């Protein structure tokens, strides 16, 4: 399988604090790669680095055969990497529909606006009902759906989801993951950040365990569950 995204030896940080040290990872096309690990160990920073929001200090990134390190966030999006950020970061004063349309801001995506919107509504029918509602008045689960829907509007070749379960009630988490699994089954390449390893292990083709800024273990999701030692050591479960 070819790697859509490959990271080789990337390091980065905020000011004097190094957050990631020598991260290397291949994200194969058409499957789910999950990054797990305890909070505060750099999972979100890794996605932000790929998006160009955090500059890297070392290493290189290849996406669809092109080097993308040092690119601006808008160039990364245009290249086909869509990042659904942690905490949704919706446009609070826009309607649901406006938020979704912002997802297709780039000209390439704007051309597909209509079909994409139908696809998003088919996957997340609730958004169609809520189309005219101002984003800041939505519930947590609805916001998450808008965040994911907005990401899907951009199209892209790689979808990065940062903790889609964060801050939601268990039943809502199940609904959100239902959507994520459907996207996975439809053959999308997804890079998922999740704290709860058990939730993703059986669906992920690849799992990488991020501990203190570097990968402590990388392997198949199925392998993770039969090696309880890993979970015990790093995640305390």
């Amino acid at each position: 399988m070819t790697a859509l995204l490959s990271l080789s030896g990337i390091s980065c940080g905020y000011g004097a604090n190094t957050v990631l040290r020598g991260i290397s990872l291949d994200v194969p096309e058409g499957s789910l790669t999950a990054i797990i690990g305890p909070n505060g160990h750099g999972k979100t920073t890794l996605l932000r680095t790929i998006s160009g929001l955090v500059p890297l200090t070392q290493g290189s990134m290849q996406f669809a055969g092109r080097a993308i390190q040092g690119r601006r966030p808008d160039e990364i999006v245009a290249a086909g990497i869509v990042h659904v950020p942690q905490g949704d970061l919706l446009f609070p004063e826009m309607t649901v529909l406006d938020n979704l349309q912002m997802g297709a801001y780039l000209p390439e995506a704007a051309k597909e606006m209509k079909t994409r919107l139908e696809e998003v509504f088919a996957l997340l029918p609730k958004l169609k009902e809520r189309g005219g509602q101002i984003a800041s008045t939505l519930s947590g689960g609805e916001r998450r759906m808008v965040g994911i829907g907005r990401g899907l509007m951009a199209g892209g070749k790689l979808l990065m989801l940062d903790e889609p379960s964060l801050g939601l009630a268990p039943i809502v988490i199940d609904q959100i993951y239902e959507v994520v699994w459907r996207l996975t089954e439809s053959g999308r390449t997804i890079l998922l950040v999740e704290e709860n390893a058990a939730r993703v292990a059986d669906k992920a083709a690849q799992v990488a365990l991020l501990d203190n800024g570097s990968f402590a273990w990388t392997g198949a999701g199925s392998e993770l569950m039969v090696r309880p030692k890993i979970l015990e050591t790093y995640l305390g479960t």
Partner: protein
Amino acid sequence: MDVWVQIFASGLTLGAMYAVSAIGLALVYGSLNMLNMSHGALMALGGYICFYAMTQLGLPALVGVAAAMVICGAVGLAIYLAAAQPMLRSVNFETQIFIATIGIGAILENVILRTFGPQPQPQSLNLTGAQIIGNVHIPNQNILILVVAIGLMVGLSLLLQRSRLGRAIRATAQNREAAQLMGVRVGVVYAQVLALSGGLAAISGIMVSSLSGLLPNMGGDPMLKAFIICVVAGLGNVYGTVGTAIVLGLLEAGAQYVLGVRYSFALLLLLVIVVLIWRPYGLFGRRQVVRL
């Protein structure tokens, strides 16, 4: 009764004029958290360019206005490139740009002073005559200001709601990072917003000077009022700013009649204090913490 119609008419003109200058400030603050203290100097510059184009070069009024808008827009762009952009990543951006633009404003004002001299000049773009309805006397210039201001606000509203640039401006203002993740090039949006704000400053400068004459420091007072309007409305909220400007314009005209001119500004400030005690983030503002 006629008196109140008269007051309403002049208050509306005042309010519309304030709105044009306040929108420029609100747009800039809303998108990049920048208090542009050189806005007043840009207004003066716009007024003088229009005056110069019409009297010295003998150009028609429309060309004078367009020239003022283009040049002030370019100066706005230059302020972004020379001052705002290099400071953007700094932690103390808001404080730094606040001070930097005070300096830029002083430079601009002195350039105007050196070029055009300290003596007051009448603005050449000024309609004479008035519409007289019964006992109500409305100068044509006031009507022109009102019409232009309304036209500008409608145009700006369409720009913000309908155009791609407008969507990018709103998105950047509401969540900078999310806008970047949608593919918005925020640096370009900032540059465009500053240029737009410069163009608006030029028009409001021409409006203000057509009523009270040209002076190099003429922008100070209207800029202060524009800031008051922005703060009362909630910094960065464009639609709230328009509404607040019109209400404050009407209030000022009323206060001038009832209490006298000297108390109208004091009343305005009192109102600001009351509003900010009641709603520290402004009438239409979002709750947020801003350190300056």
